[in-house]
């Protein structure tokens, strides 16, 4: 059911687990499961595409981010916006847990999460990231503080309750109160594309646009958009 690229990155996590087991029977069982899954995937997909070559050719629709430093910096900004806006207090908690309990870290668990999350994150820095691509990283992000447990067991209930209440209050305000605004400038366009559309109001209005398409539609300055993307947008792409 996953996207092929996402499942490919999950295989890094699987590889780490297999390496940890150092058991040839685990390798054989996993190899059979992976082969069966690939076979089933090909059996379902190939009839619709006609041939393996046609299926491979359909991947040419991938729109990779603009090369060069400008494109990379823009992508880096996008990479940061979604987790900061979506996880706010949780990111501070992760940082605190890592700094406070680094010595008692659970190394295998940490490496397991890093084995698939870090390579995937590196791809997002290069690719044009949109919020949906973060779905693979969300479980790793939520589980990350569990890799830094306090040295003594027990406790933390009051702290955890406080963080949960604060997180829920901020998240519900973001979800229920935030609304997309009319686009009049680059700033409002960016705010809509990266933050304000991701709300209940944005969903009710059916709002989803990339910054480039917002800029084009509202006749704003398009010099920042690479010519290849302008051409794609003029053809009806996103």
């Amino acid at each position, binding site marked *: *059911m*996953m*996207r*092929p690229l*996402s*499942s490919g990155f*999950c295989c890094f*996590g699987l590889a780490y*687990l297999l390496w*940890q087991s150092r*058991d040839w029977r*685990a390798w054989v*069982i*996993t190899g059979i499961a992976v082969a069966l899954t690939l076979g089933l*995937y090909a059996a*379902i*997909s190939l009839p*619709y595409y006609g041939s393996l070559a046609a*299926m*491979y050719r*359909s*991947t040419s*629709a*991938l729109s990779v981010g603009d090369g060069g430093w400008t494109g990379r910096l823009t992508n880096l900004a996008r990479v940061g916006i979604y987790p900061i806006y*979506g*996880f706010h207090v*949780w990111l501070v908690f992760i940082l605190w847990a890592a700094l406070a309990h680094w010595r008692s870290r*659970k190394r*295998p668990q940490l490496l*397991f*999460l890093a084995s*698939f999350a870090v390579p995937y994150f590196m791809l997002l820095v290069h690719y044009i990231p949109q*919020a949906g691509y*973060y*779905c*693979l990283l*969300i*479980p*790793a992000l*939520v*589980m990350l*503080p*569990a890799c830094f*447990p306090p040295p003594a*067991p027990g406790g*933390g*209930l009051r702290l*955890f309750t406080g*963080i*949960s209440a604060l*997180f*829920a209050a901020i*998240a519900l305000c*973001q*979800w229920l109160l935030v609304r997309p605004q009319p686009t009049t400038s680059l700033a409002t366009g960016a705010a809509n594309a990266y933050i304000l559309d*991701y709300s*209940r109001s944005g*969903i009710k209005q*059916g709002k989803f646009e990339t910054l480039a398409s917002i800029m084009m539609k509202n006749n704003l300055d398009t010099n920042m958009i690479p010519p290849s993307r302008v051409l794609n947008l003029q053809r009806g792409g*996103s």
Partner: protein
Amino acid sequence: MSAKVYWRGFWAIVLGGVIMRLISLCPFGFYGDVPLQLGAMRTNTVELNFPGYMPIQLLFSVLARCGLTPFGAMWLVSLTFGMGSVIYVALAARREAGPAFSLMAAVVMSFGILPLYFSVVGATYAADMLCASAMVFHGSIFLENRKTRVTLPWPGSVLES
């Protein structure tokens, strides 16, 4: 924290997550490739951007033939996968760091903007979230036991390394 208190809290958070998703019902499929997928379902073609959509596309089609509208099927799948992710992550968190941390993880998964949004727009990203959550949960069990355990769908068929 007693087990009774934990499970009450757990189900209250899950119920809260479901309610938030139900009051945020999407009026039509608009997000990313969703319109393209709805079109592909209507015409029974594969005019999709990426080849990986086919298995989940078939699931949508099967559900749409069972009385749901095409977008209703996509919405139901993303909601189910989104809530499945909440449960998987909370259970993995309980194994790794105890019940209090588990409830906190359940709150983040239930009410966080991104998991909430992608549980209601009908996009396929919820499948990525569910599979990664399942991998985190089963990976956590594996790292504790260091054993591969495969259960096939008939009685007594457990393969263990």
